[in-house]
């Protein structure tokens, strides 16, 4: 990949409460955290890291709306113009019968649209390999990583030790 490499120092924690406290300490010391990796979403971590609320759900709403329109207008066109068939003596344009399918396509469009958007935003996709600091952060370890170009390595190391990191390591990614 053409991306510039980063020299990263990181610490692994065993518990999310310890990690949360460490992030609070880092904030109070104005240490710039490059990234935090956790095996599951930790409640209350996002505001500590100063993340803005994700706009993914707005995308989801738009995709869902597209699904609604596709299904409803599609069926309207098919059953009134393209190929009108009488089912059970019902009128061609039978709104109640359209609703389950409209609902299904709304969910389908919203779900697929959000997944694809999520992958694109994060630069993920089939065949793309992203560097990983430690395999265990997808299992039971919580990780705080610093970029050595913004934070002094020795400061970062002493911070990680003080806040209870179990392991500290460096890696170029």
């Amino acid at each position, binding site marked *: 990949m053409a991306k510039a490499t980063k020299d990263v120092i990181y610490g692994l924690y065993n518990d999310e409460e310890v990690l949360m406290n460490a992030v609070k300490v880092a904030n109070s010391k104005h240490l710039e955290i490059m990234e935090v990796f956790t095996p599951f979403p930790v409640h209350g971590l996002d505001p500590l890291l100063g993340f803005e609320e994700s706009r993914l*759900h707005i995308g989801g709403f738009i995709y869902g709306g597209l699904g609604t329109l596709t299904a409803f207008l599609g069926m309207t066109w098919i059953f009134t113009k393209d190929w009108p068939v009488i089912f059970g*003596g*019902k009128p061609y344009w039978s709104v*109640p*019968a359209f*609703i389950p399918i409209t609902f299904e396509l709304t969910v389908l469009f919203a779900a697929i649209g959000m997944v694809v958007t999520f992958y694109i935003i994060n630069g993920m996709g089939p065949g793309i390999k992203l560097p990983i600091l430690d395999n265990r952060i997808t299992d039971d370890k919580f990780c705080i990583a610093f970029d050595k170009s913004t934070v002094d390595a020795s400061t970062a190391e002493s911070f990680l030790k003080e806040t209870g990191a179990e392991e500290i390591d460096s890696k170029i990614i």
Partner: protein
Amino acid sequence: MNNQYTIPARQTTILLVGIAIGVVSLLLTYFGSGDNELHSRFWSNILHNSVFFTGISLMAVFFLSASITAWAGWYTVFKRVWEAFGQFLIVGFVLMLILGLGLYFDWHHIYHWADAESVEHDKILQGKSGFLNANMYVIFGGIIVAVWYFFARRMRSISLHEDDHGGDSNFSHHRKLRWYAAVFLPIAGFTSAAMIWLWVMSVDAHWYSTLYAWYAGASWFVSMIALTIMVISFMKSKGYFADVTDEHLHDLGKLLFAFSIFWTYLWFSQFMLIWYGNVGEETGYYLLRKNEYGVMFYGNVVINFIIPFFVLMRNDNKKKYGTLLFTAGVVFFGHWWDYFLMIKPGVIHTAHELLGGGHGHGADAHGAADHGAHGADHVAEAAHGAADHAIHGAGEAAHHASEFLMGYNLPGFLEIGTLIGFLSLFLLFFWRTLASAPLTPKQDPFLEESLHHHA
């Protein structure tokens, strides 16, 4: 910290005035000119509100039990609210008993199946008379509501006892609560359905729907959550429940949102299957409501689905007190309106039948024999088979459409007044119960989790 609620004198006065409004409304309904000689409007208003508020208190106990069984802890800071909601079941018991006794003493004629003369000539009512009869209504219904109340009372008293005697390493109080909660869940699940059939669905005595109990139960549940949100917001504004944070209200908002959708799902499932099947004995229910109650029928979906769905969809809207409170109010009224629509059309239909009008047969389920009685001009229609039920029914319904009746086709001032009365009664009872115990269950093992709740 305000851990003990004291009802301000002004609040009691306002609620008593509310109850007085309810009583005056009921008296005006009974003695006023807007009612027929059977007093159907008066009695159906009592039925409507009694069922609505009894159901809300049942759902509070039910959800409390479900939460305890699921090891949930987030609700613990305000669980006294649900415990107190549940105690209203004793009032519900009395109200439903009054309606039940009315069956024996001919006070009211809400239920077609309770009219001996109608049952004599009606095969369908005869077939259902094993379940739909006065003894079943009073004895079976009474026992069931008594059982509900027993659980509500027991679970509250265990919880209160825990305050002073809890905290042992064995969590003996909580274990006991879990036992009661687990036993109550299946009891409430099955019996609530039976009570909905008996109290509400049997208003349309010829009609039935297997989804109905779920749909009516979901209505109760959403109203209960909406009322919880309103009560907690009010008490927070008075300085109580400081530990109930945005996070708790956010979760209540999620429940309001989710169960509004659940209600819509059931409402629509019931409607679509009947619409699609197009069986005459089933479509009558919806034809009547669509043709004569158009505003209420479609309005029902708007206020109970469209408004909560779009208003509460955004994450942050569920955290804004004003928005949440507004939606809770709309939805609470919306489900009261839903119950109005479940009960009133059947009641007025029964009144027509009993007063000798005999209208509305076509849309109802009198079966094939009815066609013969309608004579030669219907022979041609009968040849078309089942579909003609709908056509025929629509004609009958159009005949009714000319007779707009306040209090039946639309809730009038008297209905709103009755709602205010019952709501005030409910709230007065609730607040008096709530004030009789500390607001925070300080020995509940889940309290700590609830205080640190993050959604």
